[in-house]
């Protein structure tokens, strides 16, 4: 047996002799590996972004909002009210918390600092439904909501922008010239998967927002209602019960369209996660098939190469090559081809992954494991599909091989 380094050197020399053919053969593997890498990276990226969305909404999450398309046709309530939210909490079972919501945005002033941010009016249920933690100070409570106190709980970004190096608790900020006292700070959630800063907001009691900030004509009017169910399986029930209850409360006659919509966000996300998983499995399997096709290309070329180089094999055998030497020579050629293809494929796959992901807005995720796996797999393809031609070469009889024209 000759040494492995010599076998590799011989293989590389043989491949260099037929550069175009070697590159074209490797191309099959390059494309195969690149698609495997890209498919799995995009799939992992999409899954992660959905997981993040689920986490940022909070789990078991249903949202009720007024349906503006129905507004003109119905002469009824048209809006959701605080008492709608209270009724849902009271009458629908399987609910952990209900948060009536008012969303607005405005500039906030503290001393000379001015910061434009979004302001949420809600109740103590808000942090339960949206899964926010209080980092310091306290959350708003029931009496804040009942009395409409001018207090605020602020997100981390507000602290960083308006109170650098200062403790914001107890400080007074002005929103629409109304002073609010800061009573607490939320722990950071960071960026959402869509790139929004989730910490850039202020929470005030619902009633204070109604009276001081949005000043709706209709008393008790709110924006949306967020509901947190006790479990994922309770969500469908909560959804239909909420629909029945609100139709009743809004006096919608049978056959008339709802003036509200109930969206089971968690279930929608869960369904999207399933779709994404199926899509990435599908993409991945197509990619694996193309890698196998690349392997068959290698086998094809190696078979041609063995036939073309029969005389070379004869010469090598005549001067003392054993059948294992010949087998290794061709096998290593196939392996070198597929590993070069694998390496270039990884590089191409990373580019392709970013290119593909630009359509999905979720950045691709490349793991060391997936890259290693693709590389090892391409080497295995080389061994798998290179073995038969190499074995065939090693079976040649020296005298026949030498006579081959």
């Amino acid at each position, binding site marked *: 047996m000759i040494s492995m380094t*010599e076998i590799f050197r011989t293989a590389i020399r043989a491949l260099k*002799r037929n550069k175009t053919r070697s590159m074209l053969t490797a191309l099959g593997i390059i494309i195969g590996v690149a698609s495997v890498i890209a498919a799995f990276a995009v799939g992992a990226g999409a899954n992660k972004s959905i997981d993040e969305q689920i986490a940022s909404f909070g789990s078991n999450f249903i949202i009720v909002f007024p349906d503006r398309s129905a507004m003109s046709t119905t002469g009824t309530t048209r809006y959701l009210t605080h008492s709608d939210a209270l009724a849902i909490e009271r009458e629908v079972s399987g609910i952990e918390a209900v948060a009536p919501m008012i969303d607005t945005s405005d500039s906030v002033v503290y001393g000379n600092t001015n910061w434009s941010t979004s302001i949420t009016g809600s109740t103590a249920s808000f942090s339960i439904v949206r899964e926010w933690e209080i980092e310091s100070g306290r959350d708003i409570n029931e009496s804040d909501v009942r009395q409409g106190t001018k207090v605020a709980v602020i997100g981390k970004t507000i602290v960083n922008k308006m109170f650098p190096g200062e403790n914001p608790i107890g400080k007074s900020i002005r929103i629409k010239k109304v002073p609010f006292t800061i009573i607490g700070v939320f722990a950071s959630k960071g960026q959402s998967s869509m790139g929004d800063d989730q910490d850039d907001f202020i929470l005030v009691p619902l009633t204070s927002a109604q009276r001081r900030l949005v000043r709706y004509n209709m008393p008790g009017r709110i924006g949306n209602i967020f509901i947190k169910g006790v479990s994922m399986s309770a969500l469908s029930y909560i959804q239909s019960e909420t629909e029945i209850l609100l139709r009743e409360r809004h006096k919608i006659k049978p056959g008339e369209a709802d003036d509200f919509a109930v969206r089971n966000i968690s279930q929608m996300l869960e369904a999207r996660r399933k779709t994404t998983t199926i899509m990435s499995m599908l993409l991945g399997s197509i990619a694996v098939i193309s890698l196998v096709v690349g392997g068959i290309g290698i086998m094809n070329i190696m078979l041609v190469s063995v036939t073309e180089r029969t005389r070379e094999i004869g010469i090598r*055998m*005549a001067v003392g090559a054993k059948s294992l*030497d010949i087998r290794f020579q061709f096998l290593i050629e196939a392996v070198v081809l597929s590993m070069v293809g694998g390496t270039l494929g990884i590089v191409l796959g990373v580019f392709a992954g970013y290119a593909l992901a630009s359509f999905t807005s979720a950045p691709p995720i490349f793991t060391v494991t997936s890259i290693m796996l693709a590389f090892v797999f391409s080497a295995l393809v080389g061994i798998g599909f290179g073995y038969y031609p190499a074995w065939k070469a090693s079976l040649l009889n020296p005298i026949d091989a030498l006579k081959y024209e």
Partner: protein
Amino acid sequence: MAFVELSRITKSFTLGSDEVEILHGINLTVEKGEFVAMMGPSGSGKSTTMNILGCLDKPTSGTYLLNGQNINDLEGDDLAVIRNGTIGFVFQGFNLLQKTNAMENVELPLLYAGMPKKERRERAKEALIQMGLEDRLYHEPTQLSGGQQQRVAIARGIVNRAPIIMADEPTGNLDSKTSDEIMKLFKKINEEDGITILLVTHEPEVAAYAKRIVHFKDGMITSDEMNLAVKIS
């Protein structure tokens, strides 16, 4: 014990359903240091005999002893070891690896012998210099004349210090002047290095360099005698 000993060697081929025997009991003994030419018309069995002698082919019956070893007992890889270490081949068509320079071609037997690179290079260079190719070390076969290519092939034959060189029509593709040069090289390594030489040819001018001439006809040896008029130069 003789260095090469063939006794009652037969060789048959199957052509369709017929068995055709083309060697009918060859007996041949060659001592170390001999220079034997095997002559005969084409189809006389001289090349088949040479292939058996070179461990490239196996006889149908009979025994072959090489350097005291019974070749009949050996299979594939063991024969490869014999071809590697004991026999140097020179072919009519040179049989050099294409797109591979002279050094690498000559190194080939040493590579399969598992010799380290540095030693391989020294030995290959030495053999090529001995063949007068010191300024052609890194030329590829297409850059060399027929005579030069055959000298590379001889260098490959002697590089592993094989005690016997087997040459099958080594001058078949060469003009007469180049043939003379090549035959002188064979004569030189036979006389100076004591390498045994077995040569297949159908040209009397080539056979004239040998010390002993064996004639083949129809798969049998018809004459085996000393060459009393060895060509001096």
